[in-house]
C-alpha cells in the first residue's frame, strides 16, 4: 500500500460515507413531508414513529463522516469548518434540535409543546438537505480561502487557513464575488427534493396505511420531478465546466472539461453512475406510478448511494482539487496535499476493515425491526 493508494482509498471511504449520508437523509425528507402526508394526529404519530426508528443512523453517519474527514483530510476540516463557519453552524444547529425532538415530542410536560418539536423536525428536514447540498457543491464550484502552512510559526498572523470573504460561508448561498452560488443553490434544492422523494418512498415501504401511502405516492411524483429538473442541469453543467487540477510539480491549474475527462477515463465510474441513475429512476417509477410496489426505496436508495458516490469520487480523483480555492488556485485542496500522513492513513485503513461488519449488523437489525 503506497501513500497515493491510501489517499485514494480514504477519498473513496469519505465518498461512500457521504453517499450513505445522502441516502439516509430520507429521514430528513420524511420530516419535511410530515405536514403534507399526515393530516391528523394519529397519522403524524405513525409517520414520526416510523422515522424515530431510523434517525439515529443518519445522525451517526453524519458524525462518522465528520470524524473520518477530520482523521483523513485534516486540512479540509480546518479550512472549511473554520472558514465557512455559518454554513456548518446552520447545519449543525438543525441537527441539535432534531436529536431531541424525536424523544421529547410526545412526552408529557415537554416545555415547548408538541407543535414546536414537530416544527423542529420540519426545520431540520428543510435546512439540513439544502445546506449540505450547498456545501457539497462547493467541492466543484470552490470557495474563497487561502492556505499557508508556514503561518503556524508566524507570530503576527498564525492562521494556516484564512477565509477571504467576510461572509464566512453565507456567500456559498447568496453569492459574494462570484455567481457560482446559483449552482450551489441548485444542488442544495436538488438534494432537498431528492430526500423528500426518498422519504415518501420510505413511508410507502414502512407504513401500511392506505391514505399515507396514497399521499406519499403523490409526493414521490412531485418531488421526483422537481429533483430531476434541478439535478439534470447540474450534472450537465458539472460535466462541461472547468476543474482545478494538480499538476506534476504540485501547482494547481484550471483545466477545461475536467470532470467529463475524469469520468470518461474511468469506465467503472460510468458503469456505477448508469446503474445508479437507473436505480433512482426505477425507484421513482415504483413509487409514483406502480400502485402496488413498496420496494421503490431500495432501488432509489441504492441508486442514490451509487450516483452520489460517483459525484464525490469525481471531485477528488484524477488530480482534481476537491476543494478549489477561488482566491488562490494553489491553495486548493487535493487528496494529495490535504491528507493525513501515511502512517495515520494506514492505521485508519486497518480500522476501516471493520466497516463491513458494522454494515452487516445494522442491516440485520434493520430487517428484523421492520418485520
Amino acid at each position: 500500500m503506497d501513500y497515493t493508494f491510501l489517499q485514494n482509498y480514504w477519498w473513496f471511504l469519505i465518498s461512500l460515507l457521504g453517499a450513505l449520508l445522502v441516502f439516509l437523509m430520507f429521514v430528513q425528507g420524511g420530516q419535511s413531508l410530515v405536514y403534507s402526508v399526515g393530516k391528523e394526529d394519529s397519522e403524524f404519530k405513525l409517520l414520526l414513529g416510523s422515522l424515530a426508528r431510523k434517525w439515529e443512523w443518519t445522525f451517526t453517519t453524519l458524525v462518522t463522516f465528520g470524524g473520518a474527514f477530520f482523521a483523513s483530510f485534516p486540512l479540509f476540516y480546518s479550512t472549511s469548518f473554520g472558514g465557512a463557519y455559518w454554513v456548518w453552524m446552520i447545519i449543525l444547529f438543525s441537527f441539535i434540535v432534531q436529536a431531541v425532538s424525536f424523544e421529547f415530542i410526545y412526552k408529557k410536560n415537554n416545555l415547548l409543546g408538541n407543535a414546536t418539536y414537530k416544527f423542529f423536525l420540519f426545520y431540520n428536514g428543510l435546512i439540513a438537505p439544502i445546506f449540505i447540498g450547498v456545501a457539497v457543491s462547493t467541492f466543484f464550484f470552490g470557495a474563497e480561502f487561502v492556505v499557508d502552512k508556514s503561518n503556524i510559526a508566524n507570530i503576527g498572523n498564525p492562521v494556516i487557513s484564512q477565509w477571504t470573504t467576510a461572509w464566512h460561508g453565507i456567500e456559498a448561498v447568496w453569492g459574494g464575488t462570484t455567481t457560482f452560488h446559483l449552482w450551489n443553490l441548485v444542488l442544495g434544492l436538488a438534494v432537498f427534493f431528492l430526500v423528500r422523494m426518498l422519504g415518501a418512498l420510505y413511508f410507502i415501504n414502512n407504513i401500511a396505511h392506505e391514505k399515507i401511502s396514497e399521499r406519499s405516492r403523490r409526493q414521490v411524483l412531485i418531488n421526483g420531478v422537481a429533483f430531476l429538473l434541478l439535478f439534470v442541469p447540474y450534472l450537465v453543467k458539472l460535466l462541461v465546466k472547468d476543474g482545478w487540477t494538480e499538476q506534476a510539480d504540485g501547482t494547481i491549474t484550471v483545466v477545461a472539461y475536467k470532470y467529463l475527462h475524469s469520468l470518461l477515463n474511468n469506465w467503472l465510474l460510468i458503469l456505477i453512475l448508469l446503474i445508479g441513475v437507473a436505480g433512482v429512476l426505477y425507484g421513482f417509477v415504483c413509487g409514483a406510478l406502480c400502485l402496488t410496489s413498496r420496494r421503490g426505496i431500495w432501488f432509489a436508495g441504492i441508486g442514490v448511494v451509487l450516483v452520489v458516490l460517483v459525484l464525490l469520487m469525481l471531485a477528488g480523483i484524477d488530480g482534481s482539487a476537491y476543494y478549489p480555492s477561488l482566491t488562490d488556485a494553489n491553495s486548493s485542496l487535493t487528496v494529495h496535499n490535504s491528507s493525513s500522513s501515511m502512517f495515520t492513513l494506514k492505521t485508519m485503513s486497518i480500522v476501516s476493515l471493520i466497516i463491513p461488519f458494522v454494515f452487516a449488523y445494522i442491516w440485520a437489525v434493520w430487517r428484523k425491526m421492520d418485520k
Partner: protein
Amino acid sequence: MDLSLIDWSRAQFALTAMFHWLFVPLTLGLGLIMAIYETIYVRTGDEKWKKLTKFWMKLFGVNFAIGVATGIILEFEFGTNWSNYSYFVGDIFGAPLAIEGILAFFLEATFIGVMYFGWEKFGKRFHLASTWLAVIGATLSAWWILVANAWMQYPAGMDFNPDTARNELTDFMAVAFSPVAINKIFHTVTSSWVLGAAFVVGICGWYLLKRRELEFSRRSIKVAAIVGIVGVLLAAHTGHGSAQKVAKHQPMKLAAMEGLYRGGSQADLVAIGVLRPDKQYDDEKDPFLFKIDVPLKGFLSWVSFGSADAFVPGINDIIEGGYPMHDGSTALSFDERVERGKTAQQALRDYRKAMKENDEASKIANKTLLDENMNHFGYGFLKDAKESIPPVGITFYSFHIMVLLGMYFIAFFVIIWFFNHKDMLSKMRWIQFIAVVSIPLAYITSEAGWVIAEVGRQPWTIQDVLPASYSVSNIPTASVKTTFFVFLAVFTALFIAEIKIMLRAIKNGPSYDEN
C-alpha cells in the same frame, strides 16, 4: 490574535462541553445499572425486574437524546472554532474521533433502537445482549474521546514534520494506550457509574419520602448502591493515578490544583482553604487567607510521587526552573523554555524558506535545530510568565470540591447499601432526604473533574505544544458571540425541557404505562 475572539471561542467550547457532560455520565452510569437490572430479569424471569428496567430505560432515553444533541456540536467545533489546532494536530487527534464513530457510535445507535423498540420483536436474551451492546457502545465512545483528550494533556506517539508543518502520528498504541489515557478513561467511566448510582438512589429516596414505590425502590437501590460503592472506590484509586500523571506531565496544573506557589520536599496537601484573590505569582503575599492541611507530613509529595520526600514544584519554582525533575534532570526556567521555543519556531521558518529555495543543507541544519528544541515549541508563543499559569482559583476550588464530595460519596453509598440491606431505609427520612440532595452533588463532582482537567491545562490546548491563543479559527468575534448565545438559549431550553419531562415521568412512577 484578537483576545476577545480567543475568550469567546473558549467560552463557547466550555459551554457546549459542560452541557454535554451533564448528560454523558448519566448515560454511562444509568446504562450500566439498567443493564444489570435487565440481566437479573432475564436470569430470574421476575416481571418486577422487567418493569423496573423499563422505567429506568425511559429516563435513560430522555437523557440520551439531549446528550446526542449536545455531542454533535463538540466534534465539529474543533473545526469551526479551533481550525489551527485541527490542522496542527489533526493527523493524530482525528483518528480517535473517526474510530469513535466507526466502532462505538453505530453500535450504540443500532442497539439503542433495539432496546426501545425491540421488546416484542426480539427474544429476551437478544434484547438483553442489545442493552449491553448499547452500554458498551456508549462506553467505547467515551473511551475514544477520552483517548483524544488525554493526548491533549500528554502528547505522545508523534513527531513534528516540518514539510507539512504539523505533528504526525508515529505510534498509535502510544496514543491509544498511554498511561494518561488509560487512567483518564477508567477514572471518567467509574466516576460516571457513581453519578448514575446517585441518580437512581436519589430518585428512590424521593419515592421513599413520599411513601410510595417501596418495593421498587428497595430493589433499585440494592443494585445501584453496589455500583456506587464499586464506582467510587475505583474512581478514588484512578483519581490517585490521575494526580500522579498530572504531577509528572503537567506540574503547573498540579501547582494550581493545590494553590502551591513555593513547593519543596515533604509538601503538604491542603484539605480545605480560601485563596487570597489578589495573589500574583511575583508578589510575596501568602496565597491563602485560610487553610487546613491534611495532618500527614509530606502527603502531597506522597500522593504525587509515591514518596513523602519527593520534591513538588510550586508555580514560582516552575517559572524559575532549577528544581530536580522526576526523570533526574533539572527543570528549565520559563525564560529558557521561551528562548528554546523561539529557536524552534525560527528553525521552522528557515526550514520552510529552504524548502522553497531547494537548499538541502539549510533544511538539514534547521531540521536538527528544530528537533533539539521541539519540546519547547509552544513556549515560543508566550510572552510573559503569567501567561503560563492557569486560573488558580477555579482549578483549586474545583479540585477540592471534587475530592471532598468524592469522599462523601464513599460514606454515602456504604450507608445506603447497609440500611437498604437491613430493610431499614424506608423508615429513615433523613437519609432519604440526603439521597435526593446527593443527585446535584454528584453532578457538581463530575463537572468539577472536567473543570480541573480543562481549566488546569490552560494556556495550552496541547500541553507545551500549542497554546489556545494560537489554536483558534480566524472568524469574527461577533459570529462566535452570536453562536454562543444561540447555543446557550437552546441548550438551556432543552435542559429545562429534559428536567420537566423527567420530573413528570418520575412523578408518574414505574406503574404509569400500565395504568
